[in-house]
């Protein structure tokens, strides 16, 4: 047996003999990590460099300051916007519709997704509709939603909800399908009712899945309310951006975008913190 293998091996290699493996003496590649201070310094330096470059380029008309504005002008506008412009009102409006849409979309999506656990037939009937909803570009419906819900808060919340609910549903449903079948059998072997299995097994197993969509949803909700404000509104950062753009106040566009990024960052951090907090309750 062994002979046969050796013979065929040498035939294939036709006299060359089997290729010898190289002997390797090599160090495990290890990258030394720099100190946080150094990393931050470099990051700040890059940012400052880019801003300075922009400023200089605008001064020398390499980029047109009429269309692109320039850092010093943006800074001045920012100070005015924060001190006397409608910053507080705008932030409040955008924040409010985002948070409401986020909560509404996430909660109802999670509930809808988990409800599929109750009946496989019901899940099969509803599923295609969910997939359809997912494939609709919901932002394209924004003008319609504004028509139906009016110019006020509800239309922004509705768009934010529409964006978040589908993802939440699908994710919670994926969580439901991932519920350990054996754990379900354990519950039933003890004699559990369906309600007991749902509350004591299905919901806790789905929580990590729901946590995983919080961060995505906060971004989606923010997009939803901004688009709602684009379409029609009286207040909000989205409206400020649209208004400033249409009157060629480019510095104000940048300022609103900056404030929006700051707001979004704050919400991301909060959700990240919430995520960690909830996660702690789930896997120990």
């Amino acid at each position, binding site marked *: 047996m062994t002979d046969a293998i050796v013979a065929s091996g040498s035939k294939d290699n036709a006299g060359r003999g089997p290729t010898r493996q190289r002997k390797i003496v090599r160090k495990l590649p290890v990258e030394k990590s720099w100190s946080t201070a150094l990393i931050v310094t470099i990051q700040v330096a890059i940012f400052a460099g880019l801003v300075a470059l922009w400023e200089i380029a605008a001064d020398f008309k390499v980029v047109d300051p009429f269309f692109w504005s320039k850092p010093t002008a943006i800074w001045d506008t920012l100070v005015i916007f924060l001190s006397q412009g409608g910053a507080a009102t705008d932030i409040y409006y955008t924040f409010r519709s985002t948070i409401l849409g986020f909560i509404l979309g996430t909660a109802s999506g999670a509930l809808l997704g988990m409800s599929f656990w109750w009946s496989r037939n019901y899940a099969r009937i509803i599923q295609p509709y969910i997939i359809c909803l997912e494939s609709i570009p919901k932002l394209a419906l924004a003008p319609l939603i504004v028509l139906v819900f009016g110019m006020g808060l509800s239309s922004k919340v509705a768009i934010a909800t529409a964006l978040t609910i589908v993802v939440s549903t699908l994710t919670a449903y994926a969580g439901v399908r991932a519920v350990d079948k*054996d754990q379900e*059998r*354990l519950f*039933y*072997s*003890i*004699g*559990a009712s369906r309600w007991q299995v749902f509350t004591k097994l299905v919901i806790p197993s789905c929580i990590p899945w729901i946590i995983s969509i919080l961060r995505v949803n906060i971004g989606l909700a923010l997009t939803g309310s901004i688009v709602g404000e684009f379409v029609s509104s009286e207040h909000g950062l989205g409206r400020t951006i649209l208004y400033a753009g249409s009157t060629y106040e480019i510095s104000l566009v940048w300022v609103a975008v900056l404030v929006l990024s700051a707001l979004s960052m704050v919400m991301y951090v909060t959700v990240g913190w919430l995520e960690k907090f909830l996660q702690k309750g789930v*896997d120990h």
Partner: protein
Amino acid sequence: MVFNTDGVPFTALAPVDLDVPAGKFVSLIGPSGCGKSTIFNVIAGLQPPSTGRVVLDGEEATGTIGQVGYMLQKDLLLPWRTVLDNVALGMEIRGVPLKEARDRALPLLHRYGLGGFENRYPKALSGGMRQRAALLRTLLIDTDVVLLDEPFGALDAQTKAQMQEWLLQLFQDFGRTVIFVTHDVEEAVFLSDEIYVMASRPGRIIDQMTIDLPRPRDRSVISSPRFVAMKKYCLDLLHNVGEAPASRTAAA
């Protein structure tokens, strides 16, 4: 028991007749896939049998759940519950208020070697401790019959030996009827009053033997000639089944 796999009927279990007297420790041994877990699932009401009945204490129990304690092949501790709450799960589901269930479970955790871990999460337990917790959860459910599906299959030899002695003690303390599945002949002989030997394709019982070693049993019994003889008899049976599965007919 016939399964339908992609429309093809597959006879997992030929007619099997299992008569377990109350208060006894009965083991099923047999090759992998011979239908041991399937028998348990049918007894626990988790799978409807294609034909046949389950009778518990003289009463029809086919397809009813919650009548027997069932420890599945995995420990299935819930990662989001503390060890104490995991052990209390069965009682909680059966209507005992959580606080009372905890009060009942706690002394048992201490008595059976899980003391100090009651407020930890399953992740912090070793394999043997996890099995112990799962076993306690099963035993704290107030049922006369307890089904244990290879509870010690994944443990190392030393832990396994400890757990067997621990289980014997539990068996004595709790006074339940136990049906036990294992691949380990020595384990079966050491623990049981009766052993059913199974063969596969289709799953069936080929022999039944009574182990009349006196209780309480001590590990030293393993080297006694009676024990060795019974173990050898069992091993030979299983071995022969492996060699010629088709031609053998039920001996019991």
